[in-house]
């Protein structure tokens, strides 16, 4: 496995470089000037805009800008946002805790829903529980998040006035109060995202379980006299979860990317909203940094997923 790992890492490096070249070229060629808001302001003379472009090196040829960016990246300097004039890594780090907390929690919630519901549905297929769960799952991933988000806001914030709907990343209380306030404001976005994700995972878990549950060794286990619960949990689930684990591992980079729509609705200062703002304002350094990190995470988690799969399933060998 060691050589497999090494080989994969060696292949990953050029992939990452290739991705960065493509990203950079696309952004450089895309029309859009980060200083265009200034262009429409009559009080800002044209020389100021020209000066800003020179300062940020926007008029240099693409390859020069790319190598400048690459060199800086390797030295740990992730660049300087054109729009907020702040270091990009500071911008991203400001948003990472909130993103991990809210989006991470929603993925956890999705898992907590998907696993029990999926396992039970598969254990008793076509029962009432299974039928209701499947219907709810279909409804869950058919309804878009902006719709469910607004529904929840209208119900819990406006009608019932139980929960705040504007996310505050700076709650002034401390201790237990802080946790309580954090819970109150996070519960809606986490539910919106978690239920959406959980709905599709439920179906996946269920079908993975059904694939395994009809295999011969399960019948053998039952005929050995083991209790149904032990058969399902110890023998079926472990094997059925292998594809599910890889699926979850591949979803992990999405946590970093945030959930753009939900972040907009609830005003959560996550990385998704940072990315969309940067795209709309043509803030190239921020876009580069965020998408590059995202690309690296995708490659990393792909690798992890492959390794996990091989480790969990002894039938897979590395070549």
């Amino acid at each position: 496995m060691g050589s497999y790992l090494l080989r994969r890492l060696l292949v990953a490096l050029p992939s990452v470089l290739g991705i960065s070249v493509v990203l950079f070229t696309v952004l450089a060629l895309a029309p859009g000037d980060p200083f265009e808001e200034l262009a429409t302001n009559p009080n800002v003379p044209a020389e100021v805009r020209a000066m800003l472009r020179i300062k940020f090196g926007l008029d240099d040829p693409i390859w020069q800008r790319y190598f400048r960016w690459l060199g800086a990246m390797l030295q740990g300097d992730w660049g300087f946002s054109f729009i907020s004039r702040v270091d990009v890594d500071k911008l991203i780090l400001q948003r990472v805790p909130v993103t991990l907390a809210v989006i991470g929690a929603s993925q956890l919630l999705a898992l907590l829903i998907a696993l029990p519901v999926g396992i039970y549905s598969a254990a008793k297929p076509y029962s009432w529980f299974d039928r209701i769960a499947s219907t709810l799952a279909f409804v869950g991933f058919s309804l878009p998040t902006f719709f469910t988000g607004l529904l929840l806001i209208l119900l819990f914030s406006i009608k019932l006035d139980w929960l705040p709907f504007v996310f505050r990343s700076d709650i002034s209380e401390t201790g237990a109060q802080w946790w309580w306030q954090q819970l109150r404001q996070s519960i809606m976005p986490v539910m919106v995202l978690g239920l959406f994700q959980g709905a599709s995972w439920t179906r996946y878990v269920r079908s993975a379980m059904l694939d395994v549950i009809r295999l011969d060794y399960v019948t053998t286990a039952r005929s050995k006299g083991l209790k149904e619960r032990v058969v399902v949990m110890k023998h079926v689930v472990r094997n059925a979860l292998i594809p599910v684990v890889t699926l979850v591992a591949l979803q992990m980079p999405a946590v970093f990317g945030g959930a753009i729509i939900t972040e907009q609705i609830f005003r959560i200062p996550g990385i998704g909203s940072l990315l969309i703002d940067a795209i709309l304002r043509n803030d190239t350094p921020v876009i580069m940094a965020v998408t590059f990190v995202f690309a690296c995470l995708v490659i990393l988690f792909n690798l992890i997923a492959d390794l996990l799969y091989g480790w969990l399933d002894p039938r897979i060998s590395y070549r």
Partner: protein
Amino acid sequence: MEERAVRKLIENVRVGKLPRRSFVQKMVALGISAPMASMMLMHAGIAQVVNAPVYKPAKRGGGGALKVLWWQGATLLQPHFAAGTKDQEGSRIFYEPLAVWDNEGNLVPILAAEIPTRANGGLSADGKSVLWKLKKGVTWHDGQPFTADDCVFTWEFARDPATAAVTSGIYKDVKVEKVDSHTIRVNYSRATPFWATAFVAAEGMIIPKHLFAPYIGGKSREAPNNLKPIGTGPYKFVDFKPGDIVRGEIYNNYHMPNRPFFDSIEMKGGGDAASAARAVLQTGEYDYAWNLQVEDEVLKRMEAGGKGRTHIIPSGDIEFIQVNPTDPVAEVDGERSSIKTKHFAFTEPAVRQALGLLADRKGIQEFIYGRTGIATSNFVNNPPRFRSPNTKWEFNIDKANQLLDGAGWKRGADGVREKGGKKMKFVLQTSVNGIRQKEQAVIKQACQKAGIDLELKSITAAVFFSSDVANPDTYGKFYCDLQMYTTTMTQPDAERFMDQYLTKEVSSKANKWQGRNICRWQNAEYDRIYAQGEGELDPVKRAALFIQLNDMVVNDGVVIPLISRPRVRGAALNLVTTLSGWDLDFGQLQNWYREA
């Protein structure tokens, strides 16, 4: 209105026959902004009577937290690098200028001890210099005293091309000299009728010399105080996350007594206008929300909750339609809508007039804008109580039909008018915005009844309002027959607003479509009168000239003014604010308080 008539009005104000307020409103009806009208009176020696806003709290602090929602969050806190009003508002919490504009168009001193006038020797007779006396005893948030050196430094900082400050346009043409520790003189190269630009309002915020001095010119972006502002304002800096949140806490040595009322301020960004309105008007989670571009019906429903209400503040912004005199389809030298071409229909005055008659302003105001818009016929604002004698609007489909028939545009078999083989099929474009799409539908309906077929196009705002050279859908390119949007009056002086119709500002490929004259109107007479107004020192003569310019543009039919758009803000019921349509929302933040 002639100059003589205006002078007579001023005399009436002086002897007390006409209230100052009525004079200002009359001027506004004619297209002169309130600050300009106020300057006219000041020039004539009539002292401005500033009604001090009611401020009840008897001590500083104790008001709790002030939470405000700006659905476009501030991205930086240096006023001289601000890319838009959101950044200026964020900076204004901490920094202050010498004076601000109130809602009546008066200058209110903040860091200035008094407003310069001819009577107190502040304004020179030749109009070339202004003497500002600074308030004594003002300190920066770090305890250092505020002096004239800071003003002179701000001027040098902003005018330096290496700094690339967005405010440099104002500061590069003046010279500021220190007279003594609390007095400065601003010198203009030529007689400047509208002198209240340097150190006034949003572009006039003063930065501390002792903190920014090591970071001038090319090093200006490295100043740590760009992100941690230290100003003279009512709140001290606590925290800033670009695009997300700005936090400040009360400054106990603020230079005005008993102010500020609130112990802390939090300015949250992100989201959209409708949810911001909800957070203030329905759930009461926030105290104040900026720019509620939401339909009035929806706002009214939210207000029924009883937690907040909408404030409508008149300003100079105007929603209007531009009529393209050039051909948007033919490509000449790599550009469409080139001034070398002519539009097949819109070069006829009768057609332009007919179009003007097809805009149902009343319907649009009543059913779409409600309180948040006022039908107008002037390019430069119009309150409903006064009608301008020079321009008027009319909605008359029959008359439009008659005009078009008379001009030779006959209806074809499909009901669409045509002449010389060309049909009246036009494209009307605007940005994606619920209200705008409704306006488009109303206009299309009326046009249909007159035999004009309108194709409606909507472009996402981030693209429409951008200045992308490569994108054909920007408003600067105007690659269609008609377009509609709101042009904002960023400064109270009409000079910067009316330059949108100068021949030299025509938007074209040569200037990367960044010329201000997007509707490509060319008129030698207009250029001549504008040049006259630029150098005219007498504010009354100047006002008369600008009224003339407004009338020219509107009567020619090249633009169809629709709705004068006041600012719409949402505030909690018990929040008392001092809002002005001529300055930033936070222009008088120190006076905000909550009623018990």
